[in-house]
């Protein structure tokens, strides 16, 4: 499950997930019919409009419920949260009990990346190498919807070369909140200001998290102010090895990434 944002805007998180899981010896399938879980519609109040998105998601990922695949993984706490905690609700509200039950079957085998690694696969040391000073922001939905707790931190602590620094007030929302960041842009910015203050206080060079959306928000603010701190998805750090640690792979400063390798193509 690449997620619509991962597909369109942050393919590096999707590539990192694929590379990491293959390195760990797993077969990865990318269902090409996938689009979007519908979270933006659900969380903006468009529950009726979300029904076809839920149905499409269930159609595409249902093979996991039939045992064709072992698990569905997404490099996102909030998309996983939407699948697990909202899809069946959306279907039931529309009176479609059959869809709700199918959605529950898919949701039962859908995992956020750190959950899949730690809970399902039982690994914390994924053999990664990332020689940078990093702070971790626990995204709200991974923390309070999925309860991933310290699983991402367990994974980061096992990364060779990585210096992990604790983020003060880590559990406070960064202010993203999906369409909240636009509908209540000023309040969102006020929340972001405090998050950035805490990130900068750690003197980390990288802020990581399990959601590209929250990183887009934090990185968008850090980049606007040219703070020199970049945002990198957890999957990219875990996918990183000695071989991949080239200057280009480390990304550009400020959370907004240039991709020279691709741009040259």
């Amino acid at each position, binding site marked *: 499950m*690449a997620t*619509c944002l991962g*597909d*369109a*805007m942050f*393919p590096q998180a999707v*590539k990192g997930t*694929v*590379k990491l899981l293959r390195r760990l010896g797993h077969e*990865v399938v*990318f269902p*090409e019919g996938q689009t*979007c879980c519908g979270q*933006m*519609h659900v969380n*903006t*109040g*468009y*529950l*009726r*409009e979300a029904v076809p*998105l839920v149905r*499409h998601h269930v159609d595409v990922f249902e093979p996991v419920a039939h045992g064709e695949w072992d698990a569905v993984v997404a490099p996102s706490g909030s998309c996983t949260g939407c699948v697990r905690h909202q899809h069946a*609700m959306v279907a039931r509200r529309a009176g479609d009990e059959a869809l709700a039950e199918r959605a529950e079957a898919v949701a039962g085998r859908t995992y956020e990346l750190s959950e899949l690694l730690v809970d399902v696969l039982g690994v914390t040391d994924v053999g990664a190498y990332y020689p940078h000073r990093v702070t971790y922001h626990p995204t*709200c*939905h991974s923390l*309070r*919807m999925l309860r991933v707790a310290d699983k991402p931190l367990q994974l980061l602590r096992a990364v060779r070369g990585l210096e992990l620094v604790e983020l003060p007030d880590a559990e*406070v*929302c960064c202010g993203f*909140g*999906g*369409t*909240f*960041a*636009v509908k*209540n*842009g*000023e*309040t969102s*910015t*006020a*929340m972001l200001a405090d998050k950035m203050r805490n990130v900068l206080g750690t003197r980390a060079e990288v802020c990581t998290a399990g959601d590209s959306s929250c990183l*887009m*928000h934090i*990185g*968008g603010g850090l*980049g*606007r102010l040219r703070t020199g701190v970049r945002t990198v998805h957890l999957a990219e750090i875990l996918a990183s090895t000695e*071989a991949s640690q*080239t200057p280009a*792979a480390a990304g*550009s400063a400020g*959370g*907004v*990434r*240039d*991709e020279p*390798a*691709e741009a040259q193509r």
Partner: protein
Amino acid sequence: MSTTHLGMPAVRDDSHDTGLPTYSPAGQGNLRGATSFPKAAHEKLLDTQLRRNLGKATGIIRGKRAGVVAELDDWEELRLAGSAIKADVMARLPELLEQLEENVTARGGHVHWARDAAEANRIVADLVRATGADEVVKVKSMATQETGLNEALAEQGIAAWETDLAELIVQLGHDAPSHILVPAIHRNRSEIREIFLREMPNVDPALADDPRELAMAARAHLRRKFLTAKVAVSGANFAVADTGTLSVVESEGNGRMCLTLPDTLITLMGVEKLVPTWSDLEVFLQLLPRSSTGERMNPYTSTWTGVTPGDGPQEFHLVLLDNGRSAVLADEDGRAALHCIRCSACLNVCPVYERVGGHAYGSVYPGPIGAVLSPMLTGISGPDDPNASLPYASSLCGACFDACPVRIDIPNLLVQQRAASVESHPRPTAQDLALRAAAVAMSSPGRFAAAEKGLALGRLVAGRKGRISSLPWPLSHWTDSRDVPAPPAETARQWWARTGGNDDEQEGRA
């Protein structure tokens, strides 16, 4: 629509009873502000003193709450018990209310039923006038703030004196409460001193902003009122159905003065404040103080049952307020909003509340619970209704659910009220059209991939900088303060189609 969940079983006058649950009528009370949340928040975010005051105060309360909650190893069981008791109350509210009425009446009290804010205010004003009094002392009460009782009494020539210190600060400052528990949380002590010097009769002109001196000034002022007032008005934290007992919990003892000294006591209470039995208080008297003030036990817990000859008020009136609660009760999932015990824990942990304060919500119920309860009580009349914007006043971060002592799933209620907001639109708005178009594009991989071709435009806008710093409305609300990265040259699905997931870049480099 089913009408089996009506909360008010005993409305005797059914001349305008449509049989449908009714919302709190527009234009009454204080459940709806004048402007939308984003507009109000815009003003509040400019107030740097407010940000400072709120950040400091909510930080202190959050720390105290976390400390006393961590002391209990059965906190989660208490939350579950609180939730179960309230769910039971809502499931048989009509029956329990009649039981309460019967027991209050049997113990010498009088019970009145108020359909809405105006009716509640009229009942209270008539009761005060019948005593011949022209002033009342008040115990801190959200129900009377909800109905706008003080203003209604003033229109009848009756002065209402707030005796809770924070409510007194708000009243003297010609201000409105901004927090359920700490209504003057938006004020610091220097501002309080200035209000006292300006508004308090006989105040010492040398008053300092030391908390003790401020409290002593308020104490001297209030004592004069306690000793002269013949009538008190209170709210209630709990009403016990099987004994007819009312209860108020407080910190200062000023409530106790009001509840014991005057001849007549009038209590205005929302119908949802019931618990079935006396022993249920055991659960809530642990949950409430720890969640609200961060104390193991609040200093004053007053309980009274009807009238006791020769002791305390000799006349007791209980006014039971609906004001939209029946409408909330009729929504079987949404009715959990009525479980709220007004502790304010969700306000204190809310990152939105902490930055904008309570006034931005318009309603007397601010914060996460207010953002759902206010529109649920009033209904949402359309896209221009200020309460239509309240369910969006949240990033859905979920901190409110974790803090709620009765486990109200506020994030889910926010989503449900967003749906109610969207479904109130008589004609599609620009947002409706955009989201509908997005749903069509996103429910098919072909259409989604076609839409992704538009990302090339984003790359063009970003140009050589690799970032986008300015976008047209409404996305300007994002780029006002945040950049957007340039879209990638290749989407993940294009990469997969080209490489089958083989990491060609990395291999090429190695």
